[in-house]
């Protein structure tokens, strides 16, 4: 910005920030003494402006936002600094004053729509409670008005329903309705759409945008997705380990990140990476963001056979509906596709699309109702127990939840050794050698062997799970949302590891995910599933460049940051 201050900027200079956080420090008292969750944080939200706080889990982004509404957990306190709301310091305001502010001055939309509505209260009653608490008219018409403003169709009768009758997206709309019911001047939205499907996420965010623009509400958006933050916010604040490392206008931050952490984040965020790949394709240049080896890559031509063929696969579950009666639910309906050796095929779909059921059937943990799964020329449903045991060596899974996929009672050595022991491979010494090699392969120090899963982070556990899957030298690995639960940088690290292992060991991946941005980076082929049916298949390039189905198009448009203009390469200083 130049030294010449024009008239508008002069006017802006006299405008008072709605929320200003100065040198904020937040400490938590734990059994291990005082822990500093946030240090030296500062941010400014002007009236009507949207500011996004971006950071990984544990970076202090939610803690900062909770401090602004005075809802820190009991063992947390503001140790230093100021939180100025419209010029008033509320960092140590009385509970009475905070109650006055909450609702009609500062609203909040929490993260998890499943647990933040009281299940025994009707939706309408929960909205009415908010209106009443802030002294606003709370008749049935007022409640219906608030709900319909949040985009709930048929609000009058919806208000009489209970939370369990609502879908995730509708619950989040109800929470937004509650947050905005009293027309606050500042709305704190803590990962408001993280638990929702991408297409629903987009609708909700669009609607939130529209409402806050109409009401002139300022929004403090907390998110882990830099692409989403840049798309939705005027200003982005990047937090790392309790400190603000960089803040500024969102587009500028994205195009010209200065702090090394922001640079890494920009380089790793899948939504941005997929956007860059798209830009590179259009310009016809190469980009490092592509993790999938190109078609003419390492795989020998003789080995490019179809290792996995899925033919007319169907799975019908019987749902119990009362005594002796049952209704059929078709989870997977007539799905056919094939997977070439040494490539990555992604199955993409939203929750309930049947993608995980397909994975379970390919793993032979669930019997298909009809249809065939042919692995290396053999129908897997015909395997006897001995052949099945051999099949287990060749097809291995990696699961989503890094906290659930390792036995907490086993140390890492026993965890990785288990497949070797089960298949009676080698003696004790050779098994230990193999475990050490595997740990090297997944870039974990060998000293990790003696540790237990609860001592490792999510990404490290996921790498242990990969090592366990690799122990038997399998040919196919089924990754069921294997990176979805990880922080962006860790996710990038694991994806890189998977790509590297693939080119080194000629592995075939079947990658189950809801995240198209990740697909863009890692997959060669894509199968899009909707409600149990396969709606589109093709090479990743084809599907992303010219999607044939409306559903695929909707999914692609829903990737955060799709509208951003980005150069294909990030300059990492």
């Amino acid at each position, binding site marked *: 910005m130049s030294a010449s201050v024009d008239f*508008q*900027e002069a006017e*802006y200079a006299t405008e008072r920030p709605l929320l200003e956080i100065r040198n904020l420090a937040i400490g938590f008292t734990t059994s291990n003494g005082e822990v500093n969750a946030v240090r030296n944080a500062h941010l400014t939200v*002007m009236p009507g*402006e*949207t500011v996004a706080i971006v950071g990984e889990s544990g970076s202090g982004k939610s803690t900062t936002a909770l401090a602004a509404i005075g809802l820190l957990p009991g063992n947390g306190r503001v140790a230093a600094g100021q939180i100025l709301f419209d010029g008033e310091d509320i960092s140590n305001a009385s509970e009475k004053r905070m109650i006055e502010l909450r609702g009609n001055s500062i609203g909040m939309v929490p993260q998890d729509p499943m647990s933040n509505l009281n299940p025994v209260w009707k939706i309408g009653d929960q909205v009415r409670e908010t209106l009443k608490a802030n002294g606003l008219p709370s008749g049935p018409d007022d409640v219906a008005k608030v709900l319909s403003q949040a985009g709930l169709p048929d609000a009058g009768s919806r208000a009489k329903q209970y939370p369990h009758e609502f879908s995730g997206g509708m619950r989040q709309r109800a929470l937004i309705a509650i947050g905005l019911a009293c027309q606050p001047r500042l709305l704190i939205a803590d990962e408001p759409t993280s638990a929702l499907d991408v297409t629903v996420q*987009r609708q909700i965010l*669009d609607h939130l*945008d*529209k409402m806050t623009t109409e009401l002139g509400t300022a929004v403090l958006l907390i998110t882990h997705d830099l692409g989403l933050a840049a798309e*939705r916010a*005027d200003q982005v604040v990047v937090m790392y380990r309790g*400190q*603000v*490392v*960089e*803040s*500024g*206008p969102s*587009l500028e931050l994205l195009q010209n990140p*200065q*702090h*090394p952490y922001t640079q*890494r984040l920009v380089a790793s965020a899948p939504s941005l990476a997929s956007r860059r790949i798209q830009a590179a394709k259009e310009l016809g240049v190469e980009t490092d963001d592509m993790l999938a080896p190109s078609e003419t890559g390492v795989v020998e031509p003789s080995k490019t056979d179809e290792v996995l063929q899925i033919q007319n696969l169907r799975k019908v579950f019987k749902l119990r509906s009362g005594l002796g009666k049952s209704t059929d639910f078709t989870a997977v309906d007539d799905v056919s596709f094939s997977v070439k050796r040494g490539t990555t095929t992604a199955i993409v779909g939203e929750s309930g699309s049947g993608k995980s059921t397909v994975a379970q059937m390919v793993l*032979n943990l669930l019997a298909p109702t009809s249809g065939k799964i042919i692995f290396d020329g053999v129908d897997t449903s015909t395997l006897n127990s001995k052949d099945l*045991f051999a099949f*287990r060596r060749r097809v291995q*899974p990696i*699961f*989503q*939840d890094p*906290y*659930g*996929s390792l*036995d*907490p*009672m086993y*140390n890492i050595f026993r965890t990785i050794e*288990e497949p070797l022991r*089960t*298949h009676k491979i080698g003696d004790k010494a050779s098994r230990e050698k193999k475990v050490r090699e595997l740990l090297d392969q997944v870039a974990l*120090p060998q000293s*990790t062997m*003696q*540790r*237990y899963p*609860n*001592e*490792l*982070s999510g*990404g*490290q556990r996921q790498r242990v*799970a990969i090592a*366990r899957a690799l122990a*038997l030298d399998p040919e196919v690995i089924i990754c069921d949302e294997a990176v979805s639960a990880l922080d962006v*940088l*860790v996710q990038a*690290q694991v994806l890189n590891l998977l790509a590297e292992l693939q080119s080194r060991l000629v592995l075939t991946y079947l990658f189950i995910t809801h995240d198209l941005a990740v697909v863009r980076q890692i997959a060669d082929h894509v199968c899009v599933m909707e409600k149990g049916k396969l709606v589109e298949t093709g090479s990743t390039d084809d599907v992303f460049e010219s999607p044939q189905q409306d559903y695929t198009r909707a999914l692609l448009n829903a990737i955060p940051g799709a*509208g*951003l203009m980005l150069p294909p390469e990030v300059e990492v200083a």
Partner: protein
Amino acid sequence: MTPDNTTTARHADSRRPARRTEHFVADVSETPLQVTDRVKDEAAPLSLWGEAWKNLRKQPLFIISALLILVVVAVSLFPGLFSPIDPTSEACQLANSDAGPAAGHPLGFTQQGCDVYARVIFGTRSSVTVGLLTTIGVLLIGGIMGAVAGYYGGWIDSVLARINDIFFALPLILGAIVLMQLPMFRTNKTVWTLVLILIVFGWPQIARITRGAVIEVRNADFVTAARSLGVSKFGALMRHVLPNSLAPIIVVATISLGTFIVAESTLSFLGIGLPPSVMSWGNDIQAAQASLRSNPMPLLYPAIALSITVLSFIMLGDALRDALDPKARKR
């Protein structure tokens, strides 16, 4: 408003005054970048049980109850070390009937002229034996029933759950009175018959806890992972599901060990537990009841011993529950 309009409008909104937002960058030396996802290798590796032990060691509740239990176990193993007097009925002198404390007899005498202190010490063994044996038996039967029902589910679960409910509905005391009156039990009452009766009425509780714990674990990803490695269904139960369900079972078993000791005393007091020839707190309380008004002390001391023992097992269970709480496990 279409999505694309929103984004473009946001960045080039001419209606709003052009606010100048500063581009702030923190000093890198103050916010050093750390290696992504580094393994913390400062602390020594710690298993779940190791961690529980570390927490337990600092808890006064655990220390007190563990010390008390150690004393009780030592007394029951080597009663001779704690009491120089042989309390068998032959050694009782009727001349000492209901006498107060005397030198060498700190707690006085019973109506039969036996030393109360010695009887309390020597009675420990039968109470602790009944408690321990019953707990082991209940763990075996209830554990197997519960694990099978919870793990395999389906009709097996339905059948076992109903059997469980039937036994759960039978009151222990009433059932024991009826069974102990059967000729085969009436004629040869021993520690073993009592243990058998207590197991028959005690297993449903453990079965329920085990079933719940197994159901919680059986669908965990690590069990699915083991199955897809080629581990058999039964192998996965033994190697992964059961070890991970142990914590709540241990807690309940510890607490019920205390209640089984109470049950033994109750049945002995009613005259349908251990035979009078076996020295036990329950029998002593029953015998002392006759002279309760003139000499309450012979009743009071075994009752105190009983309360302290049961209390310490229940306290130990509580301490274990806190230390093994799965919610506290995740870091």
